[in-house]
């Protein structure tokens, strides 16, 4: 009798769960930024969950049971790659027993494969250098051009997994790209010069000449125009996590508060960068909210620079509700007085 009840309960539970998993696609991303882009691309055809909330340092995370549960039901797993998730991805994927999302299957997408990557080491990497990622700097989502490229990669992969929705995924990705282009360059400039060319020109700074051309005077808008006054400025960042953003907007990262990637600041190193900051007239010290402000404040006190604390991930601060809002927030914090 007891056994029958137990079996029935199990059967009911199983059926309920199976019913719950049928229907919409389930996408699990390692970071909140990937989730934000995936949501924009998948629209109402998928449920998107992120492992990281955007508030924590994604290098360090515990592969807790509820993450395994999310991976168990996923049709598509999207990771940032470049070994950012190396400390916790494998136990989650292994623990999930989900063959659909194993590495090398269509259900496993490495977003880094579609991104433009910086800081690829040209010498042999040893751990004496700190936490250097041998395949390149993993903070590439902070380059809006990479956000644009990731959207396409996600659309193409979703089209492969769920061909019925292919047209919709591609249309969503195109709409995402167009919206991103407008926020980056402003609608008026986009009417004059195609977006692809504008992006290419932000790569080497020729965009400056374009904006200076009499025909384009006053046409730029969006983040590009907002960041224009900061172009060419040198900044100090806490971790080497802002190189992509700096590269796209023409800022130059002169030094990091961490003496080596992933190594907490030391007094000696802080003295050195205070000297650097004074010599190079650095006005901005940029860091994420999860790092202690102590070192940055000390440096600011010694050099007169301004400390800008801003999330580098969606969800890292209340205003950063999606990918566009994150970029809006970073630009706003950097440019406000």
């Amino acid at each position: 009798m007891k056994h029958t009840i137990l079996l029935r309960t199990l059967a009911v539970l199983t059926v309920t769960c199976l019913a719950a998993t049928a229907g919409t696609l389930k996408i699990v991303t390692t970071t909140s930024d990937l989730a934000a882009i995936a949501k924009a691309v998948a629209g109402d055809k998928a449920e998107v969950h992120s492992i990281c909330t955007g508030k924590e340092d994604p290098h360090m995370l515990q592969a807790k049971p509820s993450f395994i549960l999310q991976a168990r039901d996923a049709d598509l797993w999207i990771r940032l790659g470049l070994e950012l998730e190396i400390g916790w991805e494998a136990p989650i994927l292994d623990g999930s027993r989900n063959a659909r999302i194993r590495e090398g299957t269509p259900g496993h997408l490495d977003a880094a494969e579609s991104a433009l990557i910086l800081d690829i080491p040209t010498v042999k990497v040893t751990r004496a250098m700190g936490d250097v990622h041998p395949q390149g700097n993993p903070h590439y989502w902070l380059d809006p051009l990479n956000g644009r490229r990731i959207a396409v990669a996600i659309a193409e992969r979703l089209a492969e997994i769920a061909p019925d929705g292919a047209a919709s995924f591609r249309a969503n990705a195109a709409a995402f790209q167009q919206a991103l282009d407008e926020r980056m360059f402003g609608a008026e400039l986009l009417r004059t010069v195609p977006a692809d060319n504008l992006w290419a020109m932000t790569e080497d700074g020729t965009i400056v000449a374009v904006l200076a051309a009499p025909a384009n005077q006053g046409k730029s808008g969006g983040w590009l125009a907002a960041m224009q006054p900061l172009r060419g400025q040198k900044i100090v960042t806490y971790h080497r996590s802002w190189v992509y953003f700096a590269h796209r907007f023409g800022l130059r990262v002169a030094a990091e508060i961490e003496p080596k990637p992933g190594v907490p600041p030391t007094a000696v190193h802080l003295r050195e960068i205070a000297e650097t900051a004074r010599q190079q007239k650095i006005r901005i010290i940029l860091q994420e909210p999860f790092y202690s402000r102590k070192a940055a404040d000390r440096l600011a006190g010694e050099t007169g620079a301004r400390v800008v604390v801003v999330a580098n991930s969606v969800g890292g601060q209340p205003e950063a509700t999606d990918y566009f809002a994150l970029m809006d927030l970073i630009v706003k914090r950097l440019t406000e007085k």
Partner: protein
Amino acid sequence: MRKKSLLCLWPLVAALSVTPCIAQPVAPDTKPESVEALRAEVAGLRHQLDTQRREFDARLREMEAKFAAIETAAAKVPAPAGQVSAAAAVAPPRPELAERSRVLPGRLGGAVQSMNPDVSAIIDLNYHADDSKEGISHVLEALPGFDHTHGGEEEHHHGPDEGFNMSHLELQFSAEVDPYFKGSAIAAVSEDGAEMETAEIETTSLPGGLKLRGGKFFSDFGYINAQHSHAWDFVDRPLVYQLLLGDHGLNDKGLQLSWLAPTPFYLLAGIEAFQSGGESEMSFAYSGEEPLPRHDGPRLWVGWLKFGPNLPGNHGLQFGVFGATGKHQEAHDGQTENPPGVWTPDGDGIADHWLDGDTTFWGGDFVYKYNSPKPYGQGDFTLQGEYFNRRKDLEMVGNDFNPALVGNRSIANQDGYYVQAVYGVLPRWRAGLRWEQVGLTNHIDYPDGSEFSGDASYRFGPMIDWSLSEFSRLRLQLNRGEYETDADRDGVTELYLQWVVSLGAHGAHKF
């Protein structure tokens, strides 16, 4: 649609934007003479302007020329076929771009790099000191109810030496075998030679949440058993593990089948069958030599359930229950009963009475973890605990001194638990506290009808460790124990200093 109309307008737009360049169609970087001439002309025309202004103009022209070149090149690129295509969405990378950036190879290309197994090594040095007369291992081996024999082998001491100790060098290898299996192995190399610590195969693509694992592996019962010693939060294993399962934990050759249930919460169930050839001699010893009966393997069965509620945010929680039953055999060196009730070994080193039967144990474990948003592990918190209760139910199968006792039963029942908490006090610094008790239940019914009841022993101690990176750690630990020995209570204070590093592949740790 929109893009198309833009493209129609493009030649006009391009012409407009390029106009300033057409007026001065000289590329300064390609023809230096012309630049000089041009500069001279400009200088002549605008001699009232200062040097700064002149430099700025030249720079501007240079950039405009570059821009014109890009536009001309881009205008020749045919329009993309669809609105979205990974390659066409951005302009083709130019030389400057290619130098700094690299599009990673596709799915198949990336696999080539990972054909070799991941290899890593753990080096673990510690210094140990205690204030007991004969060493802590001697005290632990003499705890009534927890003492054990080696099936006739000579007694050897477990546990650390006074002074420097090297934990064995762990050489780890792991790789995907093919699309179906994954393999990993750990060779434990010590000064005395090498032994196979684990060598296991597991499936990676069974349907229905199933996974089959085979080889020699650590049982997944409880929490700490399957963790490698370098991943522990304290230098030494908990007392209850040390006393009931010995130096290696439950690690044996066999098979494991586990199932991740399709429930809305985390539920993992597993069953394991082990050969049990004496790896865990404290509770599951086996010799099969006369007069002890032979038992075919598998001689040890373990079952466990792990349950994890979905906690929000950075909180993680897991509960486990487990049970095991297996064959156990003991061969004792002869003892004489003098005075009555007190058995003392006769000390000739030859076994002369034998016990055979089953050991069962059951228990539970929990772990709670808080993953702080702060970097370098600051604010992280872990609370974990395990309890187990062991019962040895044995029958006297041979006795050279007192054959009348053959057929009589001996039942030994012992238990123990530990609770520990570790907190990230500063970036990279953690402090922890562990409290342990063994022998809350400590009762033996001997084959001759006599019985023993013992009191509990306890141990507690703080630890502090400093992880300079994820790959190295320095640790200081103190243990203070009050042990219920044959004679009386024995208080022992221990000190550990540990220096452990890991080389090679970056190992990910389970929850």
